[in-house]
């Protein structure tokens, strides 16, 4: 059977599992500490409200055949997830839709469109910056990055004013444009470094083999930076998917994204924070990004151009 390294076309030297158990155990422990908050949120999503804040905390959905004492075990339930979409707003009346189906759609639509748009525009731009450098190329790259040098709260003020004036506030177009512009800076810098790494000889070989400039880009350069595209897409998606401040100030009732809606859902009604509801929204919110990252991780790990060109 082919080892993982062979499967990905890597050389033997970086074999998987070469580190000893001691090192692996330390890393596993650190990873667990990292993952603990996320794990707590996921567990809380499945807890009945009464057990969410109990002391001592409930830690496990199962007693593991009697290993864990009963007071640490909670009774898993799916009820919270139903509450995300339909909930009793006023006590005594029937459950009504919360609108979260729309908010999830908004998050999905706005972030995927803006990240993909930024990826398309940014990849073309970075190829240009890499292969057809302008006079003062670095200056332009620097200017592109300045939007990301200030805290969002500072940048947002002029943007709000501009959006109000032209009527982009609260529209899909407005927030998508804003996210695209913000992702562009990151995309251009990321993709430029990937394009810079490629061997120019390979492109010249394609030119001699009869390829036009467009084909050199599409058939030779782009396939070599698939790993970069995947990485940029994932990072961009995570940033955009979780963005709160711009969404809070520039989306309307119809275009509200989940991070904003989440905040409003759990703090409304003066009943204090509904922790199990919050946790279940968060758990659902985690799934799409988790899946995308999981399916693209092969590309993230893999260096496509590894060892093909002797330097």
């Amino acid at each position, binding site marked *: 059977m082919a080892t993982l390294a062979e499967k990905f*076309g890597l050389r033997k030297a970086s074999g998987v599992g070469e580190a000893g158990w001691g090192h692996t155990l330390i890393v596993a422990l650190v990873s667990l500490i990292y993952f603990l908050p996320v794990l707590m949120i996921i567990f809380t999503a499945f807890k009945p409200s009464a057990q969410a804040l109990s002391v001592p905390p409930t830690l496990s959905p199962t007693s593991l055949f009697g290993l864990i004492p009963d007071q640490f075990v909670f009774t898993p339930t799916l009820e919270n997830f139903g509450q995300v979409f339909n909930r009793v707003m006023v006590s005594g009346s029937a459950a009504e839709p919360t609108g979260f189906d729309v908010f999830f759609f908004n998050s999905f639509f706005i972030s995927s469109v803006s990240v993909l748009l930024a990826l398309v525009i940014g990849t073309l731009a970075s190829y240009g910056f890499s292969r057809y450098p302008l006079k003062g190329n670095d200056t332009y790259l620097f200017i592109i990055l300045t939007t990301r040098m200030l805290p969002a709260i500072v940048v947002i003020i002029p943007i709000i004013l501009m959006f109000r004036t032209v009527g982009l506030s609260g529209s899909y177009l407005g927030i998508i444009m804003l996210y695209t512009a913000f992702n562009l800076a990151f995309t251009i810098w990321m993709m430029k470094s990937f394009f810079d790494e490629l*061997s120019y*000889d*390979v492109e*010249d*070989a*394609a*030119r*001699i*083999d*009869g*390829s036009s400039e467009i*084909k050199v880009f599409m058939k*030779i350069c782009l*396939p*070599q930076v*698939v790993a970069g595209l995947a990485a940029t897409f994932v990072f961009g998606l995570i940033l955009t998917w979780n963005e709160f401040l711009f969404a809070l100030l520039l989306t309307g009732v119809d275009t509200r994204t989940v991070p904003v809606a989440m905040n409003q859902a759990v703090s409304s009604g003066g009943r204090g924070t509904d922790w199990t509801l919050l946790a279940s929204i968060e758990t659902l919110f985690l799934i799409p990004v988790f899946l995308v990252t999981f399916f693209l991780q092969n590309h993230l790990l893999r260096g*496509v*151009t*590894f*060892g*093909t*060109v*002797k*330097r």
Partner: protein
Amino acid sequence: MAEGVKPAVRLSGIAKSYGKVRALENLSFDVAAGRFFVLFGPSSVGKTTTLRTIAGLVKPDSGRLEIDGKDFTNEPIAGRGVSMVFQSFALYPHLTVFENLAYPLREEKVSSAEITKRVNETAAMLKLTHRLERKPNTLSGGEQQRVALGRSLVRHPKILLLDEPLTNLDAKLRHDMRAELKRLHRQFGMTIVYATPDELEALSMGEEIAVMRDGAVVQRGTPEELYERPANTYVAGKIGSPHMNMLKAKVGKDAKTFETPLGKMSPKVPRKTAAAGEAAIIGIRPSDIRLAAKGEKAIASKIHLLEPLGDITIVSVETGKEVLRMVLPEAKATSIKVGDPASIYIDPNDIHIFRAASGQVMT
């Protein structure tokens, strides 16, 4: 042009600068169709820029490039019938060996049945058939080199440009590939322009060699011509191993004899342009120095250093202030030791004479 053969490539007065760096300066040469032509010179003399100009990757600042008699100076790359093998191989890393070989054919819109046929033929010829499904990064250096070569040959190019194709291979492979390239040239008969900094490659493969210096050709000719009649000290120093011995000398009062550190030398053929008292450099091939026979006008010397190389030994001898390298067959060298006296003989008709000021040969 010799034998009335039409030139496949002709460069006239090509100049190219990158910013302030002059890569090519008034470069002119032509290559006869079907010739194995070598561009020889150390790194950064403009060999690669020359090849890239022929391929069309570089647009010259001035001058004219003709391919098959037609002006291609500012024409696009496609349509030149030129293919090129890069020093870095420049394989398409994301494509299999089959697709690498098929790429130029796909760009030419060759039918897929024809592509399969030609790729398989090329792969068989270069012993790559069992590697067709692999990606380039899983191949050895020699295999990558053959894929690069195959990708150029599969198009049946009229002109094949090779940019130091063997530099990245180990010594054994380099030797095999030299023979392989010569065989392919005989088989296909295309014009080859081959750039190399390696003297051995140049002499063993080139039917004709152009020696380059600072972006221009300083001498061109067959390997024998370059070896026997170097036009200047630069070529004399680059061609021939071990290198030519160079000594400072002066033209005698009669303008026919030369006063050298080894004594007066009078070649039979006089150098007509020699002026009495002019500073000169004389060059002596190590192979033109031998141990003196009885009755010959010997030069007394002492063995300075022995470098045995198997069947021959390079012997350095010291005479006066000069150290000269000579070549002895193994059988003659076994009996001598460092410090032994040796009397050597140099035929004055074998020496090369250059002007000290310009380095050009004195005629």
